[in-house]
């Protein structure tokens, strides 16, 4: 059973009367999971985002997961066209969007069919009953109407004729019937706002700003939202209203942030910290394009964006920008990373800084463009010809994308190396509160460029410091003219060399340089006992599910800890030592066992995997069950 469902049961039901046209009992809960689902044209993503903002501003901890189809507009009402948005909001610290849904809002039969399996038994099911006509049912492959055939008896079904009520509320506004119907997501939203005592003001303000130039639409959406809210208050369909108190959160100023937003903000911040122009080169690809969109808006911060003709051009331009002394960054998803491989190898060979972002999605090939997966780890580490080591880092939550992209930039510039940041669709599109950092407290990234010859009056481009890092001499500097390239080069001089011993030496130097990064990253820390029966270790977007599952198992008295690798190459120096402190090691991954292979191979530990390849994140319960299976309960 999920934490959310349990917290509902565990919560003291504190009933009290409240005023208003109808008396509703108010029940207090720790945590609630709501999902909005409808046709991709129904505005579910917008409803979900607004609900998230309102909850965050109210003071809950939040975590969200949008789920949308790859097709921009699949045929209306079909199963392929269903779009959903899930939000977990809580008075406690939460790390995931939640396993089972407590309240499911469905705008049509297709949304019911594809989402019902995630609704907890006894959960609240709010249905737009106007959308259950013969045709709608047929499009969703229903032989009989589920609202009438008794198949929903395990749930608390509330049938609301949302189309009718919305039209009624908006009847004297001069809009087309189509425009009126487009407001029905706000009616549904208003209803759920009432149900969970959410403040209307943030959304009303958003509507006022968004539709300032279109008074009719502004009025319609405002009225739809309020009508939904008032319907909840006046109808007798809802015996209970729920309250999720504010969370105890570290003091500070917060905003909601998605992983892709955090990545974009982190890049701009890094460019200011290292005092370099950010040149972001990218080719549009799901789910990474939002980073390009966000950065294209940031010209005021000196950001240059280059929408390249293809993935290869994007990485080539980023390396060219780096060669010129700028902060060259390219972003993509797995298929794009494949195309960039050769150029990344060149950056390894010439030893120029480069940051590559891979917002992973389901693969191989085109795969599942809008779904999440962690199957590019080995590609990031090894997907190039020759011995071609690069640094690899991975954020563990949407907000962590901010910190880890700054880390990626720091490592790339300080070690003259490509760094790949492995985000994923779940992190990129998921959102959580972000404690806005104090800009002045962020550590600067100190970079210097040579201005004088470094060796007997000559410039040697591959002369190295004690960390094995070469100098970053910029074109335009008199006296330092030099050539770099993809051919093997002689140590120190950089001249083309086919000498066998030199080649081995250079391969080992490049590898050792990347290995030296381990001297400048934090050690691996554990959540839980320092030693014990089981360590659950992961990387990337599984952090929330792993941490929640381990915390629950610990509350049941198990000697289990979790650790999360944010640095995947090189790994923290104490990784092997941490792994050996536990009798068993479990590695949950959204792939067939890629980190598992690395840990077993490098550290000779008998780790086991828990693997899910469904385009979806782990449920907490899935990891929790595996913990109990491995070390008993």
């Amino acid at each position, binding site marked *: 059973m999920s934490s959310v469902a349990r917290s509902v049961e565990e919560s003291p039901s504190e009933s009290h009367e409240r005023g208003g046209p109808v008396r509703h009992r108010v029940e207090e809960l720790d945590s609630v999971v709501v999902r909005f689902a409808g046709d991709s044209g129904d505005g579910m993503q917008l409803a979900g985002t607004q609900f998230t903002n309102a909850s*965050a*501003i109210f*003071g809950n901890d939040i975590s969200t997961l949008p789920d949308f189809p790859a097709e921009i507009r699949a045929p209306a009402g079909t199963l392929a066209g269903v779009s959903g948005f899930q939000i977990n909001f809580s008075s406690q610290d939460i790390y995931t969007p939640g396993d089972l849904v407590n309240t499911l809002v469905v705008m049509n039969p297709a949304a019911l069919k594809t989402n019902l399996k995630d609704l907890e038994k006894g959960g609240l099911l709010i249905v737009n009953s106007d959308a259950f006509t013969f045709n709608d049912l047929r499009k969703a492959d229903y032989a009989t109407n589920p609202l009438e055939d008794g198949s929903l008896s395990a749930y608390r079904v509330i049938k609301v004729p949302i189309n009718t009520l919305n039209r009624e509320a908006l009847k004297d506004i001069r809009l087309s019937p189509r425009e009126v119907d487009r407001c029905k997501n706000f009616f549904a939203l208003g209803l759920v706002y009432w149900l969970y005592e959410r403040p209307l003001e*943030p959304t009303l303000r958003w509507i006022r700003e968004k539709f300032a130039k279109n008074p009719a639409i502004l009025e319609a959406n405002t009225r739809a939202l309020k009508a939904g809210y008032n319907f909840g208050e006046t109808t007798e369909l809802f015996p209970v209203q729920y309250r999720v108190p504010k969370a105890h959160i570290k*003091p*500070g*100023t*917060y*905003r*909601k*942030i998605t992983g892709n*937003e955090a990545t974009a*903000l982190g890049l*701009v*911040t890094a460019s200011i910290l290292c005092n370099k122009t950010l*040149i972001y*080169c990218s080719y549009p690809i799901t789910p990474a394009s939002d980073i390009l969109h966000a950065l294209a808006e*940031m*010209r*005021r*911060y*000196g950001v*240059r964006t*280059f929408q*390249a*003709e*293809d993935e*290869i*051009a994007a990485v*080539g*331009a*980023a*390396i*060219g*920008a*780096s*060669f*010129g*002394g*700028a902060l*060259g960054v390219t972003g993509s998803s797995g298929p794009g990373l494949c195309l960039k491989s*050769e*150029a990344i190898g*060149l950056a390894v060979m*010439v030893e120029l800084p480069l940051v590559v972002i891979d917002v992973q999605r389901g693969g191989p090939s085109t795969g599942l463009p809008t779904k999440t997966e962690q199957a590019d780890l080995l590609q990031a580490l090894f997907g190039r010809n020759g011995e071609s080591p690069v640094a690899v880092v991975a954020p563990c939550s949407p907000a962590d994308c901010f910190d880890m992209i700054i880390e990626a930039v720091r490592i790339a510039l300080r070690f003259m190396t490509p760094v790949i940041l492995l985000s994923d669709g779940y992190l990129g599109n998921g959102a959580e509160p972000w404690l*806005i*950092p104090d*800009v002045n407290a962020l550590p600067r990234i100190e970079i210097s460029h040579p201005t004088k010859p470094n060796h007997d009056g000559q410039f040697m481009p591959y002369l190295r410091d004690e960390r094995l890092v070469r100098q970053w001499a910029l*074109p*335009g500097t*008199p*006296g*330092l*003219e*030099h*050539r*770099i*390239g*993809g051919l093997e080069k002689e140590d120190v001089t950089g001249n*083309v060399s086919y000498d066998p011993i030199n080649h081995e030496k250079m391969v080992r130097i490049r590898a050792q340089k990347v290995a030296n990064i381990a001297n400048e990253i934090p050690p691996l820390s554990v959540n839980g006992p320092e030693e014990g029966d089981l360590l659950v270790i992961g990387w990337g977007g599984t952090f929330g599910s792993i941490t929640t599952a381990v915390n629950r198992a610990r509350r049941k008295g198990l000697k289990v800890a979790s650790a999360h690798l944010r640095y995947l190459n090189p790994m923290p120096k104490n990784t092997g030592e941490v792994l050996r402190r536990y009798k068993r090691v479990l590695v949950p991954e959204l792939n067939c066992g890629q980190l598992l292979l690395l840990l077993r191979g490098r550290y000779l530990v008998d780790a086991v995997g828990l693997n899910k390849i469904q385009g979806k994140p782990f449920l907490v319960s899935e990891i929790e069950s595996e913990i109990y299976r491995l070390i008993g309960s």
Partner: protein
Amino acid sequence: MSTVATTPLPTLTPKDLSSDQDVRWCPGCGDYSILAQMKKALAGLGIPREKFVFISGIGCSSRFPYYMNTYGFHTIHGRAPTFATGLKIARPDLSVWVITGDGDGLSIGGNHLIHAIRRNVDIKIILFNNEIYGLTKGQYSPTSRIGTRTKSSPQGSVENPLRPLSIAIGAEATFVARTLDVDVNHLTDTLRRAAFHKGAAFVEIYQNCKIFNDGVFEYATDKSVKADNTLYLEHGKPLIFGKDRNKGIRLKGLDPEVVTLGNGVAADDLLIHDEKAEEPSLAYLLSRMVYPRFPECFGVFRAVERPTYEALINKQVEDVIRAKGPGKLEELFASDDIWVVS
């Protein structure tokens, strides 16, 4: 009156532009001449040596940067224009040259070539066309003529060749020219004109591959036939050619035709070259003239002024900063709804 102190322009000699590396092209390769003329052309530009960057892909021609004592980057096959584009966005102050060949630039790198040209990035793209793959030891290339017998086309190539200038003009290059490895003065002058052009300059150089495709441009280089097979373009002048300067190009409908002057055909009837024509149609027509049906044109086909890509991008940044002031991170972070937890 006070005198204004001026910094004298650096006077470079071709020797200043020679790197200490041994040149390793085959004896008799046309690349030697191009290297020598490049140094000569660059030496006279008044641009300091450290401002030059040579970027290449893969192939015989792409070894070029190693032999120039400037900044250089030998990149990967076909992608040189992408590195040059990124560099130019970062550093508009540099004089960036892309050295490529018919295989590198038109086969594996065709896409990048087109896009660098259409964006009008201020780079000089020099394409050495020898109609063959040299470094991989002699396979037919995208510019090889139909029937070319090579190791990979023992019965003769059946593929229709690309005309590099037609591609460049199709992408609306702002500067397009053609020259020859052995015509040293014309080569130097053409490179110099490309250097002075602000925007994407595309220069095709007919270059002889002594080993795998020897003599493929003989019709344009052999002194006994050259005058009848080539036409040197001059802006504002009629298209006249031939040993006796008595042949010209006239427009018949939409197509060019070769006519002999006299017998009622006067110079006024001929096409007049206009390298500054706004529309690329005339330049395209000239690029389609192929030996033996026509003399092949050399010189500047097109030279028009357009804003460069990097200037437009940088202007967007400058404009918004001028209008709204430089961005502050604190404001950026707070650009969404914020809330305070106390």
